């Protein structure tokens, strides 16, 4: 049953896209592309639920030879374990809801059918990525989702900002992908395969024929792991390749919800989780720190944004950092659990914001229509890279809770969830699992500075609560700030509110625990999530033959079992786990509740009661505020390095909004395009081509002399020929 079900899941969205593409070639359309795509997604959803029952007993790979060479064969196939099923359900569920939501949101767009076709293609690519059992397949899906992201960010490509953003997204992630590809090359050279399961990398890594875990081996494996992780850095918008994600908000809001919040960006986390068995202590640490820093930095930037979608974008980056931190710290299950809960509540937040924007946009479209683009073209903020369309500016909102009750309530639920309000919201459980895991890990490491990771996570949690409630207070509470817009606002149509309600329901922990749990067929989720989920690299330096972390489920169980059988330290592992995690969990839970409460309270003081003034705080802490407003000056820093060279081109740089790596990307682009490429271009023209032309000139000149011999009189020719013959004969006779 497994293979046909997965095939149906994959083929339905693909067919929906193919129909659009083929008819498009003849300039025709399927009459209702939206129904077609949505139906395809719903079928896929149904099949995913059917798979829930199929999976657990024994995860297995189903492969076919995809590319067979003389000595090597690359296979393609499905691998189905509980993680796959979780991802399948998350993707199909969110995707279906976004499809339905889009019917309302995108209604009336001139390219309405195309939007759904793209969504279908995206769903196919994402699902393909999820079910692939090998790195090559994952890479294929990986790049295809990148393409879809490109197409959908640039959906309104008439806007220059959208055209820039989609290119930036594709290129930035491609930088990461190249890292990933180099990692793949390393693994392929070592293991002669790119399959993960079966007789794949995860098996061969324990086989001395392919890999020995001596010092060099561990270093090598760490490098490979970090390189693979580079792909995840790009796709999941981790520091320092995160700059594309806020820009990606140029795409339609349902796209932001589906691709840039719930699914595609989580693919990086998924990949890292998949690669769990090959992570070494070093690469785990790198991942943890990258995640931790990202979580904290992105959260602080989000505090000062006014564009409702950018707040959510930075929040997404921050939450993804969380998941990475979890995986890096070995809390595999916690990371994936957070991925799942986050997918639902973040999709809900985006769709909710979409609902708000839709309410404003309808009015806005009437009022301004064409001027939209020109309006901001020259504004100061545009140069700073934070142009805010008025319908997304929270400073124009306020008091909407009466106008849009359903949107308000559902968004509030999501906010409570992401803020980690205890017990009745899913976000609390997953976030708490991560905090507990990180603290436990820090304790295990027993090294003071790894507590920094926990500190960063905790700060990020508090800040998250603060800025999310800031968003809610500014949008839904208080007095309307822009009366004209407020009057026009209205609740969204059913096609939009129903998905909101469903997602709100999914943000409740009960639901998640129920199905997350069932997929495992393991002890109840709570103790499970807090139990030691990692049999670690022994902290005592006894890294001998097991310099990699082992997860609890999936095929890696086999590895774990083997390890337990083969090594005397297995008992210690279990003990470590219990010692480390029992108290860690309690401490983490208490602390997280405290910081979340603190964040919400502060937010209430600032933005609802207004006992404290954000402005005055901003003034007193001017340097800090500026730091956040300018996204840590990374952008300015990198720009600055180049601007000293090319001050006059400042505007060019400003075009790209920028933060840290924007500078790098632009810098590289600039250096290559304007300097290096121009130089190579000139070199090509002058030197290489010059030599060629010189040769031609010499030939030409010599020819000019020689041509005088050509008198045109045939008798002369004949004379020369005969004289030559006579001479030749004489010469050769003489010899």
């Amino acid at each position, binding site marked *: 049953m497994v293979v046909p079900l997965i095939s149906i899941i994959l083929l339905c969205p693909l067919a929906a896209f193919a129909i659009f593409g083929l008819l498009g070639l003849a300039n025709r359309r399927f009459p209702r592309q939206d129904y077609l795509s949505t139906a395809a997604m719903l079928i896929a959803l149904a099949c995913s639920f059917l798979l829930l029952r199929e999976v657990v007993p024994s995860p297995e790979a189903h492969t076919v030879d995809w590319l067979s060479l003389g000595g090597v064969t690359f296979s393609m196939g499905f691998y189905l374990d509980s993680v796959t099923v979780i991802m399948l359900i998350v993707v199909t569920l969110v995707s279906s809801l976004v499809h339905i939501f889009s019917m309302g949101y995108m209604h009336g767009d001139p390219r309405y059918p195309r939007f759904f076709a793209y969504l279908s293609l995206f769903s196919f690519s994402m699902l393909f990525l999820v079910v692939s059992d090998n790195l090559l397949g994952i890479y294929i899906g990986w790049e295809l989702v990148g393409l879809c992201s490109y197409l959908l960010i640039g959906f309104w490509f008439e806007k220059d900002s959208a055209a820039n953003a989609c290119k930036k997204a594709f290129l930035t992630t491609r930088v990461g992908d190249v890292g990933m590809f180099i990692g793949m090359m390393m693994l392929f050279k070592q293991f002669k395969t790119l399959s993960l399961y079966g007789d794949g990398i995860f098996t061969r890594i324990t086989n001395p024929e392919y890999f020995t875990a001596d010092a060099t081996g561990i270093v090598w494996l760490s490098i490979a792991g970090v390189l693979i992780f580079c792909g995840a850095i790009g796709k999941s918008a981790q520091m320092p390749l995160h700059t594309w994600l806020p820009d990606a908000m140029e795409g339609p809001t349902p796209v932001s919800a589906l691709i840039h919040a719930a699914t595609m960006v989580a693919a990086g986390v998924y990949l890292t989780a998949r690669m769990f068995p090959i992570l070494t202590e070093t690469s785990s640490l790198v991942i943890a720190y990258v995640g931790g820093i990202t979580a904290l930095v992105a959260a602080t930037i989000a505090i000062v944004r006014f564009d409702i979608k950018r707040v959510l974008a930075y929040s997404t980056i921050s939450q993804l950092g969380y998941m990475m931190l979890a995986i890096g710290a070995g809390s595999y299950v916690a990371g994936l659990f957070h991925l799942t809960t986050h997918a639902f509540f973040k999709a809900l937040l985006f769709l909710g914001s979409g609902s708000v924007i839709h309410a404003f946009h309808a009015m806005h479209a009437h009022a301004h229509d064409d001027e939209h683009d020109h309006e901001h073209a020259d504004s100061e903020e545009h140069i700073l890279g934070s142009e805010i369309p008025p319908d997304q500016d929270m400073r124009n909102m306020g008091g909407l809770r009466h106008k849009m009750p359903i949107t308000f309530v559902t968004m509030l639920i999501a906010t409570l969830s992401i803020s980690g309000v205890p017990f009745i919201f899913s976000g609390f459980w997953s976030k708490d699992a991560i905090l507990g895991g990180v603290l436990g890990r820090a304790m295990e490491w027993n090294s003071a500075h790894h507590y920094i990771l926990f500190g960063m996570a905790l700060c990020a949690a508090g800040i998250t609560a603060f800025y999310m409630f800031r968003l809610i207070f500014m949008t839904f509470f208080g007095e309307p700030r822009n009366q004209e817009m407020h009057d026009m606002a209205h609740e969204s149509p059913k096609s939009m509110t129903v998905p909101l309600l469903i997602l709100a329901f999914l943000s409740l922990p009960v639901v998640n625990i129920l199905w997350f749990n069932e997929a495992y067929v393991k002890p109840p989720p709570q103790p499970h999530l807090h139990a030691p989920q990692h049999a670690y690299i022994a902290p005592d330096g006894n890294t001998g033959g097991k310099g990699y972390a082992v997860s609890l489920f999936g095929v890696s169980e086999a590895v774990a079992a083997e390890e337990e059988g083969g090594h005397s330290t297995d008992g210690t592992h279990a003990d470590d786990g219990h010692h480390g995690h029992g108290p860690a969990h309690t401490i983490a839970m208490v602390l997280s509740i405290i910081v979340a409460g603190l964040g919400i309270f502060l937010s209430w003081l600032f933005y609802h009661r207004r006992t404290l003034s954000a402005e005055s705080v901003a003034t007193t802490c001017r340097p800090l505020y500026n730091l956040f407003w300018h996204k840590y000056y990374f952008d300015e820093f990198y720009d600055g390095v180049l601007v000293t060279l090319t001050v006059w081109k400042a505007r060019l740089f400003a075009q790209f909004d920028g933060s840290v790596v924007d500078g790098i990307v632009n810098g590289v682009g600039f250096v290559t395009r304007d300097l290096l490429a121009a130089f190579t271009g000139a070199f090509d023209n002058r030197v290489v081509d010059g030599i060629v032309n010189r040769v031609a000139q010499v030939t030409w000149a010599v020819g000019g002399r020689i041509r005088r011999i*050509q*008198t*045109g009189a045939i008798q002369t020719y*004949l004379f020369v020929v*005969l004289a030559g013959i006579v001479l030749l004969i004489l010469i050769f006779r003489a010899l």
Partner: protein
Amino acid sequence: MTLQHYLVISAILFTLGIFAVLTRRNAISILMGIELILNSCNLNFAAFSRFMTPSEDISGQIIAIFGIVLAAAEAAVFLAIILAIYREFGSIRPDEVDTLKG
């Protein structure tokens, strides 16, 4: 009569033909020179056929006949070309027809 008699006559004819082709400033004279050359060749064929092969083998004569036919064809084309050149340039002096001059 030895073979060398014929060869000597033929060599003289050939040389005279070449001389004509080289020196005469008139296309028709050049044609005559070429005819001399062709004749010397044909004579050689016939002579070699007589002296170098068994007497009943007369292949050389046949080749000579082919040579005559070729000479006829060549003369026809040559004269046609001369006529065309004459129409074009108003002269048949080869040194005045030098479009190919480099």
